[in-house]
Structures are given as C-alpha cells and as structure tokens.
C-alpha cells in the first residue's frame, strides 16, 4: 500500500469511529441486547430457562432454542465476547469522538473576543435597543457598565470614532462540560476493568464461633484472605410484635498473627473493611444438625442475675429458690396455628426462637414451659424470679459477601466528575454580550443610542431574562440621572 492510501484508510476508520452515527447505532444495539439479558435469566440453571423458553416456543422446540441461545451467549450475556466487544466499541467511539472534537471546541473557547460592528450586533439572537434624549454617552456607558458588572460580567471596553463598545463574556469553559461527562464514563470503564482484573468477589458462610482464612468463589474456589476472620455471633432483630426483620447483624473479629486486631458488628449497609477486603452482611441461615448452646440468664427475686451456657438436656437451678429446669425442647419459630391453636414451628429460621424447659418447683408436679427470646415476659415465674432466654448460640451462620475492589475509588471519583460535568453541560452556558453606545449624530450630538446584542450556547430563555434584567436596570439608572438634572 502506498503511504497515501494508508493515510486515507486510517482517516476513514478514524472518522467512522468518531461519528455520532456509530454512537447512535451502538446505543441502539446495547439497549436492545440488554433487554434479552433481562428476559433470559442470567447464569441460571438450564432448567429455569428451558421452562421459560417452553412458554414462548413450546416444549418440543425449547431445547433447540436453548442450544442456539446458549451458543449466542445469551445465558451469560453480559460477559459474552460480543457484548463485551460492543461495550469496547462504545468506549472507543466515545474516546475517538472526544479526541476528534476537542480541538474545535477548545478553539471556540479561546476564540479571540472582539467588539462587533453595530450592524452585526443587530443580527444577534438576542438584541435590544433604546435611545436616551438628554444623557451624555459617558453617563449611559457608565450605567451599562455598572449593570453588567452587577451581573458579574468582566467587562472590556473599546472606543473608536465616536462610539464606545462594552463587551463581555461569561462561562466560556462551560463548553467543556460535555467532555467532562464523557471522561467520567471512560473512568467508570477503567474502574470496572481494574476491579475485574485485580479484585475478587466471593462469599463465606461463617457459623457462630468459627473462623476462616479463606473466602469462596461462586464455583467453589478458595480465595486466601491473608488473615483470619471469626464470627462471634449472628443476630436478626425484629420490629416489635412483627416478624419483619429490623436488622441483620453479626460481630466479626479480624485475627492476624494470633492477635485480635479488629472487632466490629456489621450490618447491611455497614460493612467491615480490613486491608482492602470488605465483608458485607448478605445472608444468614441455620446450620443443619447444629448443637448450639442455650444462653440463659436466671435471676432470683431481688438477687443477682447469673448467665449460663447450657447444652440440650442440661439442667440448671435458680440459686436459692429451689427451682430447677431442664432444657428439653427448642423451636426456631414458635407460634400457634391459626386454625387449631396448637403450637407449631412456622419457619426454619430463628424468627421467634423459644426454648422448652421442664420445670421442677418445690411442691408442684414437673411441667413444661416455653420461654421466648423476643418476649421476656414469658420467663417471669411466680415469686418474682425470672429466666431470660438470651440466645441459642452456635446454630446459625452469617452469610458474608467478601470482596476486594481496587477500582471502586475510581468509580466514586468518576461519579463526582460526572455530576459536575452534567451540571456544567446542562445548567451553565457560554454567554456573550456586546453593548454599542453612540450619539445619534456625529460629534457627540443628539440622543444616545444603545444597541445591545448577545448570544448563548444554551438556555436561551434564561439568557433573554438576564439581558432584560441588565437592560432594565441600566436604563432605569440612566433615567434616574436624567431626572436629577
């Protein structure tokens, strides 16, 4: 290929990549293909999407369609090569387009700003005229100067022949707002790539009282943490009298070189971060076949409370009362059946835990009573003694999302930049005003004629109002001077 052809080819590709037509096409492709990803369930078990496809294509065609869809990457679309390619094309388009246009905009921003001939001022998009019969042109000019300054314009002045011109501009850099927005989008991409390349996302189900020095990826791989994390306890708290959860919490301890370096109770929306790795409260559950400890506080009437840790079948005494009990039963969610009124366990999770205790009291037959964790009054015994059910500990695990994302700070910065860029792009504008002041007849004679003109890069409506305001304020000041004379 000759040098020239190469150059032409490069220019063709460049202008294609810089074109807004391409941007429009990519917008449409990304929007439409994203729709597919919201209909076909992503990274789901095949059976789910087979059932979905059967609704549309019938049972017999569904497997074939499924295979075609799977080949096209629809089942994990947002990670498929072609979707990622479109995202890349989108960012290349954005970068090339911005590089391509920036010099022109930069020129526009730094265009030498000069006075205009009066007949040109009269052709500007926003214009006004007025004549003052008896004022001097110097006085009129002064008032317009004051008025422009009051609207915070930095005013330049030029005089030629018998005319003076005031001219000023504001917000020329607002033309760059668009580039700031585009830059922030690129930064988001960069942040996402850094996160994907150098970060990880995993999970860890940690039973109460246990520890781990790894987290797990979704396919079961181990991710070493570099330290040990331990779960002291997990707890769901509920709104009073309701089974609506108020908070999911667990207390985590970071152990490094055998020392506890950090302890924090985490909640949804309030994670723990240590050495760049963050632990989020994301789920919880009961351990199958767990043998936990019943933490129970007994208080004889007027006496000191005493906290006990008991296993299933253990017995305890309330000191000095002769009352004893044996842990005999447990339900994670005890309630009464709506129809029969019998006690039932209505959830596998610890929604309303209750411990069943066989009581032996002096002079009474043994009997069984339930003490609810969420309802302390169920532990009030005759004679003012009380038993409080604090927790069934060691039976639950806390589900943690464990992730490290070294790109996230860039995402946050990009968010701030985008907010600033959007504000500048949409709510600020590059405004220019020229005011031509001259006497009607040569030699400083006759009424003073004012021609004002201006243009703006956007928000013409607001600009017109501003001009009105500047104009009225100056005219009134001139008239006030005239009246004084």
């Amino acid at each position, binding site marked *: 290929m000759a040098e020239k052809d190469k150059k032409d080819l490069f220019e063709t590709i460049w202008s294609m990549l810089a074109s*807004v*037509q391409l*941007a*429009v096409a990519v*917008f*449409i492709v*990304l*929007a439409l293909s*994203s*729709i597919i*990803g*919201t*209909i076909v*369930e*992503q990274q789901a078990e095949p059976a*789910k999407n087979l*059932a*979905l496809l059967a*609704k549309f294509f019938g049972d017999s065609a569904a497997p074939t369609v499924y295979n075609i869809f799977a080949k096209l990457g629809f089942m994990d679309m*947002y990670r498929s090569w072609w979707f990622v390619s479109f995202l890349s094309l989108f960012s290349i388009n954005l970068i090339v387009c911005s590089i391509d246009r920036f010099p022109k905009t930069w020129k526009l921003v730094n265009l030498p700003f000069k006075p205009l001939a009066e007949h040109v001022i009269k052709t500007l998009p926003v214009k006004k005229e007025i004549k003052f019969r008896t004022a001097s042109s110097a006085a009129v000019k002064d008032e317009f100067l004051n008025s422009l300054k009051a609207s915070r314009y930095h005013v330049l002045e030029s005089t030629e022949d018998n005319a003076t011109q005031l001219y000023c501009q504001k917000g020329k850099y607002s033309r760059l707002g668009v580039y700031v927005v585009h830059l922030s989008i690129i930064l988001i991409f960069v942040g*996402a790539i850094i996160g994907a390349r150098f970060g990880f*996302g995993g999970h860890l189900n940690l039973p109460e009282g246990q520890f781990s020095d790894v987290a797990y990826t979704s396919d079961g791989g181990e991710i070493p943490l570099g330290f040990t994390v331990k779960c002291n306890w997990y707890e769901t708290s509920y*709104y*009073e009298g*309701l089974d*609506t*959860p*108020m*908070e*999911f919490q667990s207390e985590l301890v970071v152990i490094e070189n055998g020392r506890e370096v950090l302890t924090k109770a985490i*909640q*949804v*929306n*309030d*994670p723990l971060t240590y050495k760049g790795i*963050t632990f*989020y409260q*994301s789920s919880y559950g009961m351990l199958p076949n767990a043998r936990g400890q019943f933490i129970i506080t007994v208080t004889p009437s007027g006496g000191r409370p005493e906290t006990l840790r008991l296993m299933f079948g253990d017995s305890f005494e309330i000191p000095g009362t002769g009352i004893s009990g044996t842990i005999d039963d447990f339900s994670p969610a005890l309630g009464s059946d709506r129809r029969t009124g019998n006690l039932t366990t209505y959830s596998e999770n610890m929604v309303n835990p209750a411990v069943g205790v066989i009581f032996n009291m002096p002079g009474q037959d043994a009997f069984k009573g339930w003490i609810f964790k969420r309802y302390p009054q169920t532990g009030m015994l005759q004679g003012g003694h009380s038993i409080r059910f604090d927790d069934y500990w060691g039976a639950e695990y806390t589900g943690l*999302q*464990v*992730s490290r*994302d070294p790109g*996230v700070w860039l*995402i*946050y910065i990009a*968010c701030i930049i*985008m*907010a600033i860029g*959007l*504000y500048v792009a*949409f*709510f600020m504008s590059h405004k220019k005003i020229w005011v031509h002041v001259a006497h009607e007849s040569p030699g400083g004679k006759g009424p003073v004629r004012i021609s004002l003109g201006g243009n703006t890069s956007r928000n013409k*409506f607001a600009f017109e109002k501003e001009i009105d305001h500047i104009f009225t304020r100056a005219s009134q000041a001139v008239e006030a001077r005239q009246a004084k004379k």
Partner: protein
Amino acid sequence: MSSSAFFNISAGAYIAALVIYVIYLVTRNKTVGVSATTMTIFGFVSQTIAFLIRWSNSYTFWMTSNPSSGLVEALLRAAPLRNLYESLIFFVWSLIMIHLIIEFKYKIRSLGAFVTPIAALALLFIDISGTSKEIQPLIPALQSNWLLFHVLLAFLGYAAFGVSFGAAAAYIVMVTESRKEKTYIFWSLIIGIFIIVLVAMGIDFMSLSADERKNLIQSHFLKSTFRSESGGVVAASVVISIAFLFALWQMGFGLKKVLASLSVTTTMLEEIEYKSIAIGFPLFTLGGLLMGAIWANSAWGKYWSWDPKETWSLITWFVYALYLHARFIGGWRGKRVAILSVIGFVAVIFTYLGVNLVLSGLHAYGSG
C-alpha cells in the same frame, strides 16, 4: 385530618383538574383555564400536606422501634419514599410540581391536558394495583441515606421525563398531517395500550375479592381479560382493544385542531420536551444510576450486577442519551426526537413497574 384524607382530596382535585383542562381545550375559555390551574394548585397543596403528615407519622413509627436514633437519622429513615405506593405518590407530586413550574414559566396552560392524565393514571394505578398503603417497617437493606436520595432524585427525573412525554405526545398530534403517518400510528398505539392495560387492570380489580386484590399484580395481572381461562373472554378483550385503538386513531387527530386553535406552538412544545429531558437526564443519571450503584455497593459490595432493574435503568438511560445526541449532533428534530421521548418514558415505566410485574412474572415458576 389524616394523611389519606388529604391525599384523597388531592387525587380528586387532580382528576377534576384533568376534566377542566380538557374542557379548556375544547372551549378555550380563559376562566375555565384559570380554574383548571387553581384546581391543580389546590390538589398540589393538599398532596403536600398529605406527604408531610405521612412523613410525621412514619417518623413516630420509626422512633417507637428505634428510640435511640437521632433526629436527622430518624427523619431520613422516615421519609415516605419507601415502597411502591409512596414512590408513585411522590412521582405524581413531582410531576405536578414540574408541570406547574412550566405552566407559569411558559404560560402554556394546555400542557395540563397532557400531564394531568399521567398523574391520574398513576393515581388510578395505585388504587387498582392494590399496593399496600400502610406505613411499613423499613427492612434492613433500605436503611440507607443513599437509597433515600437515590429514590428522591430518580423520581424527580422520572417526573421530568413524564412532562417531556406529555409535550412530545401533544407535539406529535400537532405536526401530524395525515392519519396514515407512521408517527401518528405509533402515537395512537402507545397511548391506546396505556389506557387498555389500565382499564384491564381495573376489570381485574373489580372482579377480585378484597383479599385477592392484595396480590393483584403478582398473581392476577390481566387474568380477567387477556389472560383469562376462557378463550371467549380473551377474544372479546382483543376485539374490543382493537376497536378502541382504531377509535383513538380516528379521533386523536381531532386534538390537532383544538391545540392549533389554542395558540400552542410546536416550537414551544419542542422546547418543553427538550428542556424537561435536560433537567431529567442529570437527575436520573445522578440519582437513578450513580446513587443506586453507590447504594448497592455499600449494601452488597457490588456497584453493578446487571440485575433486571439495573439493566432497565441503563436501557432508559441509553434512550435519553440517544435523544440528546441525536438532537444535538445528529441534527434530528421534530417527530423523530419526539418519538424518542415517548419511547424513553415507556422505558421509564417498564423500569419501574414492568420489571417487577412482567419480568418477575416470567421468572416465577409453578405459580404461572
């Protein structure tokens, strides 16, 4: 008076305002126009009162379960923007507010006839969808300031898009030369489908018992019409809908003359359509996308996970970005961009309602 009493007053006022705006369109009588505006303002004031009372009630509610929280925290957590019901109400409130601002700024009253229907439809939707109106306790994931600002800004953005949609709808009618134009057919279809779905939901609502109404959307959506067990009902629904679409297509054209006689200019409508997007786009970007991502990151450690809700917000965003670029650089004007404004608002509705109603329905197995 209670919050819901004031709210009912405002709902009544908006529906009355809708009727008066339409009468104004037909009669072009100035007094009628002024009373439409007055009625809207009256509704807006009552709704503001309702909103404040509800906020105060839910503040008390929050304080009883979390007595240790500080004043600011409690006020933020109690902000009535926490479920479908409250956010739809806030949407209506923002829509009316933005409409009133535009009405005063541009002195264009007839836009009311296109914006109040959106408000009325949203109100009707609230009622027939049977969403719970109780003050509900806030579940843990929602206890975040990011979430609050996310919802607040996103809904202001949606309301601005709604106004743009109203202006675009009026614009398309005004510039239509013939009923055969694709744009106009598209217009009749979109408006018609809106109304048909709403009426169909109304029929669902009436045919259900009070208990079933609570999950109208989850399990009874369009079950008494288009998704009925009986083939006859389905066929009748389809036939009636087509007849309705046809009638709308025939008669919608009449609006053109009315609008033209009201000194509504196409330039003005175009400007409102664009201006609203210029306001809505930054709000939606910041509130809908960025703050949503920040909230997700603080709650789950992932700022973007391509879930259907996020993806649909992104699609909506692409549509409006397309609008801005097509208009500003592609030099598209007139009908072509007006259509994008309409599509954008359809995407907004789908993002907010469709994802929960349609997609979760598709993905729910066994319950059919």
